[in-house]
């Protein structure tokens, strides 16, 4: 479980805090999406959960972050990486650049952790199966497409068996097919219940379909927290530039024209839109 208690954080030399009085609890196995405009503090929240704040980025931190009751500021980063995995936007930057095959790339983190070879082979194989990249095992990591590379990056972190997986806009540089591949792989993990997922994402259509819970950030504070259908249809959040899915936009227009059932909440997914428009 992730527990964030009254955290305010300011980067070194920054004029104002990136996060303000954030408190949050994310139960084990939940797929939690974090949305918000650029500069809302989403990536800072990701670095905070992964322990890069305060271990990598120093700055001024008040409050505490606990992963399974352990305060991240008290655990060395090289131990913390075994509990919390972090995936970044740019898939290319996550490839180590020193390995000649996907299989070896996935083993890079395990080699650093000193995992015995037999166990390493087993973990690499099972992770490739989970993320459905077994067919890429012998390919050069730098010769893959963006979506494939991102899935390799996810597998590389998952092979280290973290309890928590934090993804910072992992689909921002991917095409629709690549995005779907990544979302499906993450959802599968979450459904198994072994991994808690915190995913920062702008693609609200995908968030609405896959996330168990949506947290909206604005100006470093939490302004929305709940089910996707509640958070992503909240009119107050439109003013905070959180955005809305195209289905919510259509349903909202329909409601204004009296063509959306008054008892039905606005749609955030295609299925919900079909349900609302069928009558």
């Amino acid at each position, binding site marked *: 479980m992730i527990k964030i208690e009254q955290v305010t954080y300011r980067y070194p030399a920054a004029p104002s805090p990136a996060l303000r009085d954030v408190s949050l609890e994310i139960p084990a196995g939940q797929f939690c999406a974090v949305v918000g405009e650029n500069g809302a503090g989403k990536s800072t929240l990701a670095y905070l959960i*992964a322990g*890069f704040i305060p271990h*990598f980025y120093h700055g001024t931190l008040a409050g505490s972050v606990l992963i399974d009751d352990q305060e991240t500021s008290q655990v060395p*980063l*090289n131990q913390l*990486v*075994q509990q919390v*995995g*972090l995936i*970044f*936007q*740019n898939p*290319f*930057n*996550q490839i*180590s*650049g*020193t*390995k*000649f095959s996907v*299989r*070896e790339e996935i*083993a*890079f*983190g*395990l*080699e*650093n*952790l*000193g*995992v*015995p*070879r037999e166990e*390493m*082979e087993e973990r*690499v194989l099972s992770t490739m199966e989970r993320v459905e990249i077994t067919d890429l095992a012998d390919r*050069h990591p*730098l*010769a893959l497409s963006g979506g494939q590379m991102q899935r390799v*990056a996810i597998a*590389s*972190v998952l092979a*280290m068996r973290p309890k928590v997986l934090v993804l910072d806009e992992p689909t921002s540089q991917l095409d629709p097919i690549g995005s779907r591949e990544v979302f499906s792989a993450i959802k599968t993990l979450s459904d198994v219940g072994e991994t808690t997922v915190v995913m920062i994402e702008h693609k609200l259509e995908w968030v609405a379909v896959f996330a168990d819970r949506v947290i909206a950030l604005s100006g470093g504070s939490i302004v929305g927290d709940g089910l996707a259908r509640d958070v992503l249809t909240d009119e107050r959040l439109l003013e905070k530039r959180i955005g809305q899915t195209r289905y919510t936009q259509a349903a909202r227009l329909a409601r204004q024209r009296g063509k959306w059932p008054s008892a039905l909440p606005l749609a955030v997914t295609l299925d919900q839109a079909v349900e609302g428009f069928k009558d």
Partner: protein
Amino acid sequence: MAQLNSLFVARDSPIHRLNPLTKLTLTGLLLVTGLFLPGVLTNYLLFLGVILPLSALAGVGRQLLSSAWKIVLPFAISVFLIQGFLWPQGTPLVYIGPLSLKSEGLQFAVVSTGRILMIVSSFLLFSLTTRPDHLMNSLSRIGFPSNLAYVIVATIQIAPRFQSRAVTILDAQRARGLETEGSLRTRARALAPLVIPLVLSSLIDVEERALAVEARGFNRQGTRTFLVEQAEAAWEPAGRWLMVLGMAAIIGLRVYLAVSR
């Protein structure tokens, strides 16, 4: 097939199967032999008698020759012309107008070209038959700092990506009307709009890459393990020591000859 971003050519050969440290030591022995042993033709003999046969055995002879000549030929032409004709005093062999080709200059050019040929081909033999990551692992196993090994290997692999980014920035700036061709002054003026975005974007990438490798336990202290076992023949450790002794003997001989002269 040549692998991405490195000179390595995958083959199943006895040379490829050697421990990278054995190949690195052999490269050192070749360099010491060629540079310290006297003789005008020593380096050519090393090239023809050792490097070329080993590259043929490894199945990379064609790649070695095609890369080596591109480096050595321009050097050879310039050194033959400059040293052959501009050697201050010596025995003229041929007169061409006011210039004369001197015997001593020619000999110097032959020796220099031989050295370059031997150095270039030794490193090519090593690079064509050694995977950079295997070298990194082998170096880490003997206590070489893994951070340094990572920087060397990752830089080799990732350099082409930065080249392609430089081209993208060049195209983007041209599309916005930046003059990048013409006089020296025009080109100099275009430098800042090209270099600054390249450096800044590279710095951002470096930070993200540092975080990414950190997230994979790269800075963890303690023993590392390796997915790929580094197999080596029973004779290799002793062979490496013998080569080191050989290097010491050659350097010793050279010092003795210099002192006793």
